[in-house]
């Protein structure tokens, strides 16, 4: 971790993104979401509000879901990041992605990576029923689906019965 005594415009950071070590010199004011999208060109992470409400930019930082639009790139120094590209297998879809496809859990797809990352970052045992699943999802906004099919996709991916 860099320690700074004088204000500087640029800082060097080193981090792991989707299992690959990366380093870069970035403006200290650059948002993590912009760093991921513009510098790393991982455009699967979307920006929907830039004020931490909609959840479209959700990624995993050291395994936990985080809104990358209200975190600075320099704050990711030394951390391990996972984006939607990082959970996607070489071929095809992972089980959660497949469940979204099977149950029509997406329409325009813009919010989808954020949902996938939130769900990937939580422990299913902490969300035993539909109400708690809906609460887990409530930090991610979707304007297309009405959420019902997303809830169904989560249940399917977690091996729960679908009525």
């Amino acid at each position: 971790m860099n320690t700074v005594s004088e204000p500087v415009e640029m800082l060097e950071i080193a981090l792991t993104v989707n299992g690959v070590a990366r380093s870069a010199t970035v403006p200290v004011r650059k948002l993590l979401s912009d760093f991921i999208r513009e510098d790393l060109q991982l455009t699967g992470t979307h920006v929907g509000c830039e004020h931490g409400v909609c959840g479209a930019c959700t990624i995993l930082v050291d395994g936990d879901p985080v809104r990358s639009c209200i975190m600075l790139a320099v704050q990711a120094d030394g951390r391990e990041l996972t984006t939607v590209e990082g959970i996607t297998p070489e071929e095809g879809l992972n089980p959660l992605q497949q469940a979204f496809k099977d149950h029509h859990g997406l329409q325009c797809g813009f919010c989808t990576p954020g949902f996938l990352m939130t769900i990937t970052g939580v422990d299913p045992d902490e969300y035993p029923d539909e109400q708690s699943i809906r609460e887990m999802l409530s930090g991610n906004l979707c304007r297309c689906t009405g959420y019902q099919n997303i809830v169904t996709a989560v249940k399917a991916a977690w091996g729960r019965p679908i009525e």
Partner: protein
Amino acid sequence: MTDLRLAGRPVYFGARVARVEDDRLLTGQSTYVADVRLPGMVDVAIVRSVFAHAKVSVNVDLARAVDGVLDVVRAADLQDVSEYPDFITYMQPVKGFPLARDKVRYVGSPIAAVVAEDRYVAEDAAEAVEVDYDELPVVTTAGSALAEDAPKLFDHWPDNRIVNLPLELDDVEDVFRGRRVVRGRYSTHRHSGVPMETRGCVAEYRDGRLTLWTSAQSPHIVRTTLSYVLPIAERDIRVVAPDVGGGFGVKTHIYPEEVLVSWLAIRLGRPVRWIEDRAEHLVASNHAREHTLEMEAAVDDDGTIRAVRCHLLHDVGSGEIFMPGICPSFVAGSHVAGAYRIPLAENSYTQYVTNKTPSGAYRGFGAPEAYFAVEQLVEKVAREVGVNAIDLRRRMLLRDEDLPYTTATGGIIDSGSFQESFERALELGREAEARRREEHEGETNVRIGFGIATYLEGTAPTYFGTTGHWTSHDSATIRIEPDGSAVVSVGVTTTGQGTTTMAAVLTADALGLPLERVRVEIGDTDSCPYGLGGWGSRSTVTGGGAILKAAATIREKVLRIAAHRLEVDEADLVIEEGNVHVVGSADRAITMGEIGTAAWVRTLDLPPGVDPGLEAVATYDPPLLQHVADERGRMNGAAAWANATHAAIVKVDVDTGVVEILDYVVVHDCGPMVNPPILEGQVQGGVAQEIGGTLYEHMAYTEDGQPLATTFMDYLIPSATEIPEIVIEHFESPSPNMPLGLKGAGEGGCLGPPATLANAVVDALREFDVEITALPITPAVIRDKIRSPRRVDA
């Protein structure tokens, strides 16, 4: 008419086929406009008005001097840009222009554009643009905008009325005279589509051609409009709508930034990008739905409505938007008789400008507002006359024997399940109500309410009412390649509705091809034939019609080539599974690849007199659609009419005023379903959106025109915890006038919630004798109603 049908037995049509677009969207491989990356690309930030009404003068010298800034432009710099055309003859001319020329009329109005090496620098420099505001008096309500001495927004208009269409019909007056009249005044508030992807555009000018990638619903209309306002020929413009993250009507308009970014790319010779941020979106993308319907019903002693009269007041904000935002009122007007046998209707329109963000298109486009009024007025008639509202609806709803039926406002209804869908939704709703009443029995602060609303949805409408220019057709091109695979290019577009899958399914089944051998081109004016895009529940109906028509031409040629090669009669051939074979003899076959090869490569294999090639372009214009109203304001403005009934059970906490939706039922009928999961997703999404509009979302303003909802902390989009499970059942009444009987469905879901939930809340609070005359129904409103029930909302 060409034979608009499938090749044979449907394989994919009507089946639960997985969407062809999903894999890219699920893996981060999609390309939304913000993902378009071009070498040397620079970013734009827009300077926007912070006052609602002011004369402005702008100094950009300081901004130009900021390190990394390439250009800063004001209206005066746009010398070769033309005003947007004002096509609509009965509307005051707005003379729209991309940047404010001397005056701003709403907070968020674009004043200057800053181009810099990146968005961070552009925003720094935007701060350095000096705008002198000379403030003017502000109007934000009907009262202030329509007052005799109201300050005018447009100096060249007589007053603030953008549309003023009074109507008095003698036969309606005759029906009203001597009958009981029931009146209601119903207001819906300002809210909007607010897609999760904001707007944005990227432009590049290279080799004399402009390419604009834009998050838009109608790329061809963007192209044509750019050719009207920029000094560049339409042939030299390419517009691409890449993956679009929701539209809901918001992205049908052609916004100032699309013109500015294109103009800047031409001027600078570098690719230029502008991506709207959310704070901008909430003031700079269109708002909607701020309607008041003053309704009167002339009723018989048993409550049967014999005529309705409606004065529609519409706050269109500043009106500075292209396409104009006035047409939702006419769509609302077209629904004032509901799904009922009400013989006569009379609509008058007063649309006015205010110092607020321009209003425009939002899913449902006036119809949710209309049903909020109509479906509450019916209940009010029943209460005042003393009959049961359910029985009253049963008496008035359209019956099978009425069809085809022309509504009081000119809609031609050729099919539907009005009585059946109503009865089924009623049954499901009553079951749920009984269950919920039992569950909550004895909870002293809880009241349970049942609400129902039934409606028609006009689908695939004319665009002439909105644009005064474009009408209604769409197009498709289908090409069979030498290997027997197919490419279908469509003029309709997708913002997430699954239109790509619809196009693939119809093409595959109309040509007897496996789905995976069809590729869909969509959203690119260079590769797609001219179409009006995706809006108004039109893509399946109009785009589907064009696909079926093109496929019919292809089938004809395929059969001719196959008959020649197999030396049989065309009538003895069947097309299926990528082959053409003789009926009852699957081994006497020729593959689609052999036919494609004969058409394009080995043309010596073609029958004598048959030209090479296997490609067809077709346009489809729905047959019954009318574009202009008659002298009574009547027209059949929609190609096909779907119908549905919604029922909801709500729980109202009389201490807190919180409304919780316990059950929501939709019984829906849009004719045959191309893809049931996609249709159900459309219904669920539409219901969810207008639950938001009914209970939570509000673009509120202060008296001096300052917007109060500028973040997602203030503009409350419902999350997974606010939206209940939505139970959907279907009827499928095909339209005899549409290809395959299809009707549209994209908007339908959002027509029901305002009326359904209002009726449910009124029912829950019946001991307090309340009326819900305005939206949104917030906890504060409910608490206030309980305290003073009979007050009519402003």
